[in-house]
């Protein structure tokens, strides 16, 4: 890594990506082309982020660099691999991709190993594995690869609910003491745990909406028929007043948005009617009302 490049530099002099005359992409960092970019590094710029995402960390990236060239981990050419690794890091930094700290720690480690390899080795230490400054890294890479492979094999095993399915039967006919009822605090505790977990994952947003609408969605869906249209007005209860109408209306809109109901009107200004989307649950004669 360029020892002069620090984060502030990056911000002030953004890196650029240009397309050369021959269509080749040129990466520039601090205005200087990234000279050390190996010819086989080329990655379409828009693919870089995906590319980075596809690595599980610096060990994974190193392993990729080694394996791609059919090199033996045990004989890892530190100088060459370090050069390639640094080139990747530079490009990622140049593109301002968020880089986990571990990648930079590895860069420092590689640089250190490289410099130690240049030092003359004391004779008496030659038989000792410590004599090879690459040893610890080699061990780490071997070990990581071992588990990376194990993970792939684990994923390939037939798994319940994905590849194989349990066979069960309903126990509805059975008699017995009543099952424990859910208590409110148990339920809330479980929900809190789900929410906490979900908040740790990207893509999950929690937004507000009236729970009464959710409940109404279920009851409307349940009362609609897939073949007959029902008047929207018939879904309203006078006793619920204005708020009930609003809730029902919102519920119908939500159901529409989810593609669960369809609207119909025989002619302009005639009553709005709706039905559940899709054919009857049952093929012979439908469900009993």
């Amino acid at each position, binding site marked *: 890594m360029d020892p002069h490049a620090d984060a502030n530099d990056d911000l002030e002099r953004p890196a650029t990506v240009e397309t050369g005359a021959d269509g080749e992409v040129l990466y520039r960092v601090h205005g200087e082309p990234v000279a050390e970019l190996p010819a086989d590094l080329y990655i379409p710029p828009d693919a870089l982020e995906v590319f980075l995402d596809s690595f*599980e*960390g610096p060990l994974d990236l190193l392993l990729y660099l080694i394996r791609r060239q059919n090199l033996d981990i045990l004989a890892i050419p530190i100088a060459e691999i370090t050069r390639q690794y640094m080139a990747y890091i530079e490009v990622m930094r140049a593109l301002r991709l968020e880089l986990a700290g571990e990648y930079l720690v590895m860069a420092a480690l590689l640089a250190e190993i490289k410099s130690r390899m240049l030092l003359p080795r004391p004779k008496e230490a030659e038989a000792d594995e410590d004599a090879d400054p690459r040893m610890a890294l080699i061990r780490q890479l071997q070990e990581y690869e071992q588990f990376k492979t194990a993970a792939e094999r684990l994923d390939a095993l037939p798994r319940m609910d994905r590849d194989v399915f349990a*066979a069960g039967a309903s126990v509805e006919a059975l*008699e*017995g003491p009543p099952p424990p*009822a859910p208590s409110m*605090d148990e339920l809330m505790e479980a929900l809190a745990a789900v929410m906490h977990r979900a908040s740790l994952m990207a893509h999950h947003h929690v937004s507000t909406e009236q729970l009464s609408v959710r*409940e109404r969605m279920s009851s409307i869906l349940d009362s609609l028929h897939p073949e007959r249209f029902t008047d929207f007005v018939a879904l309203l209860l006078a006793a619920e007043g204005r708020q009930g109408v609003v809730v029902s209306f919102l519920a119908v809109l939500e159901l529409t948005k989810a593609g669960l109901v369809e609207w119909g009107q025989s002619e302009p200004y005639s009553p709005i009617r709706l039905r559940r989307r*899709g054919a009857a649950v049952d093929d012979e004669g439908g469900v009993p009302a």
Partner: protein
Amino acid sequence: MDSTIHAPVAAADDDQLRAVELAVEAVLFAAAEPVAPRDLKAACEDLGEIDQALLEQALGRLEERYRDRAIELVRSAGGYRFRVRSRFSATVQAAQPERPARLSRALLETLAIIAYRQPVTRAEIEAVRGVAVSSGIMRTLQEREWVRVVGHKEVPGRPALYATTRGFLDDLGLKRLEELPPLDQIRDLADVASDAGLSLAPPEAEEDTGPGTNQRLDFDVADAEPEPDSRSGSAHS
């Protein structure tokens, strides 16, 4: 006694009938709830043209097959399913070493998500939980009559849409779903609990928090596919 001309035809039909019988058997044993005839037919799509008569013949054979067994094929409004015969009630109970006094965490989480996100499919529940929901749990929730199927999403496979029932509210002592604590309150509890490593204080279920203060879980399920935690590994520092 009939002409030999019919024999090969009968044999071919027999193979198909047996194939349909086994396919239906597989689907019914794996299902969490009764399966409608049209969904059974759809599952047998690869076995050639399946008409109503053929399906009923296969179901008839299945029924016959399990006549003397511990389970039976039953038909209800929603479709067909296998059910353990009632005379095995005591046997099944005896096998449960100590009846769980508490409901499993997975079951409670599933139930809570259905309550706040209904009507919801199993895949949507799984996307929120981040882990699979077994057919067994969905079956249990329905058998305890806390959850029911209120429809099917019109996408391939017609996944069931689940909602909570009257019985669920009754068991919690609620009149309406909106009497459940609002989500932001639960979220606060979650934060406090995880910080302190404490169990959650029970929210005041009896108090009517009133309508309009509730929130829903809007997990953008469509965007969550296919790897709920794909980014969490490398992006973490």
